[in-house]
């Protein structure tokens, strides 16, 4: 038995790596987050908006509890967590040891800039003579050899690109803090970790390899990421889509799908490109309604939650779709327009001219993946992606090493984040015995004084070299500060952030006896933790110091008007002094946690979630409404990879039965739930009406969904018209009985008016059934009538295999579905064949309908739990991408088909992710709120309840005995919605009291 180490190495700080590291850090493990880039975020910071809602909610990844330990700012900028050690510019050199106890050698490439001295002032980049294409803008713009990766990147310290640096030394001369050292050595360190999570992401296929499309040769042929950067507000054109040759808005844009994927060399689907092409098409159409947008595609794979509606939105906006693969692009040398040659479905050649062409380049394993995967010793597939295990998407061939996101298979953000949660769950399960071994206890807040002492405010003004003084006369500001009430000391420093200055500042504050401190310096992200530590050492309560930004929001944006900028700085300082004078030390109230869980539904998702919790040591109540566990998977006999679901599910059943931590309640429902995250009390009601009350800290909803019973195509009137599920049972139990023709119809009860969502699983179901028919009787003809074949990622190979074995795929339009005429003797199907003129008539011996799933009546449960359903009756997550298993009510999570249609391996990953989110709560003895929380002035409260309905987090309720509104501080997220809603000003936000805001208004005017 190895001694397990309570730390996990996460490789790749993209969105998956961030999620995994945060999930582990929040459940008692130390995480080393390594990235080869100088900053966090991976591909995500390059994107401005995300499908399927054109929004950005990256910040939702941040923790809900103990928020103060983690910077509460936009995640594009910063991520600080006491249990996460970020190692940028770093790579894995060697991995030794075994699951539970690995030793990893990490090489960190020196950035040649001392981070503790860099102020991010940009003087170095201004003098650097080397210009190279900027990766952040995908080569559309130039950057210097000394640079920050993105204007928002954190750490925002400059970094020297060694490949292109000429060592001319100009930057060294201008650097005001002597931060640059071209001899700064690389570092190598060994860390001990119990598990490793690989989230190394992908690299975009180099479209120039497909010479026929002229990428890199024709100015107006771009890839998706470049268009993304053009549409981004922070990009070269500040959000205008201007084509490179003449900087004009294109009148006609063509998108080409599947560039570098779904071909002979890479026979997999890149999964996310249909969606981001749709997004870019929608953004273009919204911005330039007159621009024609045409998408050349093979199958439109909009299969995730909410994606089909997004596809419809694009159609409604007038985006056109052409089902064809473009063979070649030619450039008109004069106009730089592009001539596309393609063949329509009916065989005619089409030539059309475009102003701009966008290539959807595939996701490929990253350039360093081979080296990394060898160092890790994990198996890879034929294309170099890490091989996942059957059923368990995040398990690799090596125990203790897990994978998520595009490192294992092309994935979008939503699925990557789910897998990241699942990978964190695997690692946490393996290391459950080492939980809390290496994490630091929350730093004790300083019990300073204040209330009975006199208020003494120290003001420290940073000049940031010349950066602030160039626009603000800091001497005048300092003089002015002396005159402000309660200000006892004012100090100007040249560079606040330098270690020696901070030491000085600490001493002078201690000496002056100040009990409140204001720093006038730069944006709060940069030095939040650094200043926080200094203040703690100086004995200043965390709520009694404040940073005002006079650099990014003042000196750097008002360079031309020193007089006005100085006046503004004075006013802002006066306002902050007013605000901090009224500030009381804020205390955090912890709330106890019942370290048990309730899982509702004992299908595959529910059982996996319960086992994940139990294996991490948490007692779990598993409630199932039917007598049998297993749910829909209990009726499945094989899947695309021909694994055996029955063996898998029986194994789960056995484990659930044998687990001493799981209490299974069959034929039972949940009838009442009270309380809040960390402390719920629920009433279970069995079939015989007996009730049980249980107390628990988290809830996972895994109630599944139901099969759609078709009303279409004469189903139920003829025993030769069956569903895919019935076909599977037939094939397994009785064999086909040699029919000579089988016809399958796709999208029955999905992607239609009543069900505007893709069922995600039925294309795979149809293909595996077709393959099995062909195996049983090769002479049987199989037709698959479809609208799009949705075999994403490596499912694509099975689609190819099906075509190779002679399965015929015929595409029809939604408006022109197949006609079925069934009698006792024969079934005739007529369908429009896009290739042949007129209708194709097929006499079938068996007609198989690929039916979707529909939700059961979830309303009662949704009401009991106070969580929401979406338009289609599935349980709604807070955010499809970044919080895919969280409901709006903290402590309640969702997974499996109750949330959306998914394949079995995806449901398993989602169940693990949900379990890990629950563990984030259950692994603590108490939940800590943030310092800034809302409170109630009981004397003013009129018990009207408006604040209760306003609160989006269920953090308020009405105390019936005292007739007053009450705040649950652990749940309160400090949005302040209650403050604005309260008609009596009884709701207040600590640190942002009305009095404070109003005094700020007075002070700045």
């Amino acid at each position: 038995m190895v001694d397990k180490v309570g730390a996990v190495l996460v490789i790749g700080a993209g969105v998956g790596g961030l999620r995994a590291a945060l999930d582990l850090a929040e459940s008692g493990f130390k995480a080393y987050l390594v990235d080869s880039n100088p900053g966090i975020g991976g591909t995500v910071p390059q994107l401005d908006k995300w499908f399927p809602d054109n929004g950005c909610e990256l910040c939702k990844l941040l923790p809900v509890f103990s928020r103060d330990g983690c910077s509460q700012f936009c995640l594009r900028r910063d991520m600080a967590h006491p249990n996460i050690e970020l190692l940028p510019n770093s790579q894995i050199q060697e991995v030794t040891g075994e699951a539970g106890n690995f030793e990893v050698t990490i090489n960190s490439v020196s950035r040649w800039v001392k981070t503790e001295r860099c102020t991010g002032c940009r003087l170095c980049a201004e003098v650097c003579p080397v210009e190279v294409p900027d990766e952040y803008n995908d080569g559309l713009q130039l950057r210097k050899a000394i640079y920050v990766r993105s204007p928002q990147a954190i750490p925002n310290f400059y970094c020297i690109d060694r490949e292109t640096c000429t060592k001319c030394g100009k930057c060294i001369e201008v650097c005001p803090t002597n931060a640059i050292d071209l001899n700064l050595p690389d570092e190598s360190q060994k860390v001990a970790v119990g598990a490793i999570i690989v989230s190394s992401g992908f690299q975009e296929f180099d479209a120039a390899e497909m010479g026929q499309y002229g990428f890199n040769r024709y100015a107006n042929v771009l890839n998706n990421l470049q268009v993304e950067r053009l549409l981004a507000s922070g990009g070269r054109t500040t959000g205008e889509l201007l084509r490179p040759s003449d900087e004009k808005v294109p009148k006609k844009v063509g998108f080409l799908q599947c560039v570098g994927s779904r071909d002979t060399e890479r026979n997999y689907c890149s999964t996310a490109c249909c969606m981001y092409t749709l997004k870019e098409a929608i953004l273009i159409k919204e911005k330039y309604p007159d621009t024609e947008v045409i998408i050349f595609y093979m199958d439109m794979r909009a299969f995730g939650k909410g994606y089909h509606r997004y596809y419809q939105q694009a159609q409604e906006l007038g985006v056109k779709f052409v089902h064809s693969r473009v063979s070649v692009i030619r450039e008109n040398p004069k106009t730089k327009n592009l001539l596309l040659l393609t063949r329509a479905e009916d065989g005619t050649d089409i030539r059309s001219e475009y102003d701009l062409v966008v290539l959807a380049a595939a996701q490929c394993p990253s350039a360093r993946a081979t080296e990394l995967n060898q160092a890790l010793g994990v198996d890879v597939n034929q294309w170099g992606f890490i091989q996942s295990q059957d059923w368990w998407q995040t398990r690799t061939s090596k125990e203790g090493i897990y994978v998520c996101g595009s490192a294992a298979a092309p994935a979008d953000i939503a699925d990557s984040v789910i897998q990241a949660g699942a990978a964190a769950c695997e690692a946490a399960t393996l290391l459950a015995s080492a939980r809390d071994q290496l994490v630091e206890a929350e730093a004790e807040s300083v019990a300073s004084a204040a209330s009975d002492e006199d208020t003494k405010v120290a003001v420290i003004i940073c000049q940031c070299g010349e950066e602030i003084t160039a626009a603000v006369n800091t001497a005048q500001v300092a003089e002015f500060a002396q005159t402000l009430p309660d200000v006892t000391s004012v100090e100007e420093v040249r560079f606040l952030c330098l270690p020696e200055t901070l030491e000085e500042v600490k001493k002078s504050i201690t000496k002056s006896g100040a009990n409140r401190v204001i720093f006038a310096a730069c944006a709060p992200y940069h030095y939040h933790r650094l200043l926080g530590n200094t203040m703690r050492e100086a004995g200043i309560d965390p709520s009694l110091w404040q940073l005002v930004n006079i650099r990014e929001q003042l000196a750097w944006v008002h360079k031309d008007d020193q007089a006005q900028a100085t006046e503004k700085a004075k006013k802002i300082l006066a306002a902050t002094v007013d605000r901090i004078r009224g500030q009381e030390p804020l205390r955090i109230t912890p709330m106890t946690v019942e370290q048990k869980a309730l899982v509702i539904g004992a299908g595959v998702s529910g059982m996996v979630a319960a086992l994940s919790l139990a294996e991490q040591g948490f007692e779990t109540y598993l409630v199932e409404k039917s007598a049998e566990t297993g749910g829909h998977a209990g009726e499945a006999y094989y899947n695309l990879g021909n694994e055996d679901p029955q063996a898998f599910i029986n194994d789960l059943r056995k484990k659930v039965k044998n687990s001493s931590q799981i209490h299974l309640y069959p034929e039972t429902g949940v009838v009442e739930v009270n309380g809040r995250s960390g402390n719920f009390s629920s009433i279970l009601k069995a079939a015989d009406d007996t009730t049980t009350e249980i107390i628990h800290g988290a809830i996972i909803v895994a109630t599944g969904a139901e099969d759609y019973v078709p009303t279409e195509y004469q189903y139920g009137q003829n025993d030769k018209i069956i569903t895919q599920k019935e076909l599977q049972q037939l094939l397994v139990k009785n064999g086909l009985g040699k029919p000579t023709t089988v016809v399958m119809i796709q999208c029955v009860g999905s992607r239609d008016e009543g069900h505007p969502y893709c069922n995600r699983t039925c294309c795979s179901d149809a293909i595996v059934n077709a393959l099995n028919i062909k195996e049983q009787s090769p002479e049987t003809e199989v037709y698959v009538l479809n609208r799009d074949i949705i075999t994403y990622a490596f499912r694509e190979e099975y689609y190819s295999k099906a075509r190779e074995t002679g399965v015929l795929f015929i595409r029809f339009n939604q408006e022109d579905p197949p006609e079925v005429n069934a009698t006792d003797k024969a079934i005739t199907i007529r369908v429009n064949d896009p290739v042949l003129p007129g209708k194709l008539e097929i006499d079938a011996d068996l007609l198989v309908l690929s039916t979707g799933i529909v939700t059961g009546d979830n309303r009662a449960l949704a009401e009991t739990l106070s969580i929401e359903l979406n338009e289609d009756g599935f349980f709604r997550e807070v955010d499809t991408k970044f919080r895919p298993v969280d409901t709006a009510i903290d402590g309640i999570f969702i997974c499996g088909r109750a949330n959306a249609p998914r394949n079995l391996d995806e449901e398993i990953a989602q169940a693990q992710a949900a379990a890990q989110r629950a563990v984030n709560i259950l692994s603590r003895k108490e939940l800590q709120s943030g310092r800034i929380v809302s409170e109630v002035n009981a004397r003013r409260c009129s018990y009207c309840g408006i604040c209760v309905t306003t609160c989006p987090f269920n953090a308020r309720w009405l105390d019936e005995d005292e007739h007053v509104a009450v705040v649950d501080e652990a749940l309160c997220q400090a949005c302040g919605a209650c403050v604005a809603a309260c008609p009596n000003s009884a709701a207040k936000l600590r640190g942002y009291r009305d009095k404070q805001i109003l005094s700020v208004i007075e002070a700045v005017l």
Partner: protein
Amino acid sequence: MAEGNNGFEPKIIGFLCNWCTASAADLAGTTRAQYPPNLHPVRVMCSGTVDPVYLIKSLLSGADAVMVGGCHPGDCHYVSGNYKARRRMAMLQNIFESLGLDANRIWTRWISASEGPEFAAAVREITEETRKQGPNPLSTDWAL
């Protein structure tokens, strides 16, 4: 300087949400976008916490215009705060109009954290428009 209001420098208060618009204001600085110094930023956690009283108080105390900046609709860190702000601002403008007050002095802008240039442009626009409108009569005209 705009015509007719020579030398008039409008005073504007901007209530900026912590997650999006205040971040955008910082980004505008990082990229050195220049905009007039007339807007005084007040960082709040969410646009949904901005009580109309803050805006009225600002206008009565001498501000020539007020701005609320939040995340794009649908993107709120706190699920729905910006929707609440949006309704509240629309209502406040209605109330201003029905009282014969200048609803054009109340601005709402949705600016995400990556939209530094948008923030600078918004401040320029609001400053210019307010300059054209001239000083806010509310701050001195107590007959109202």
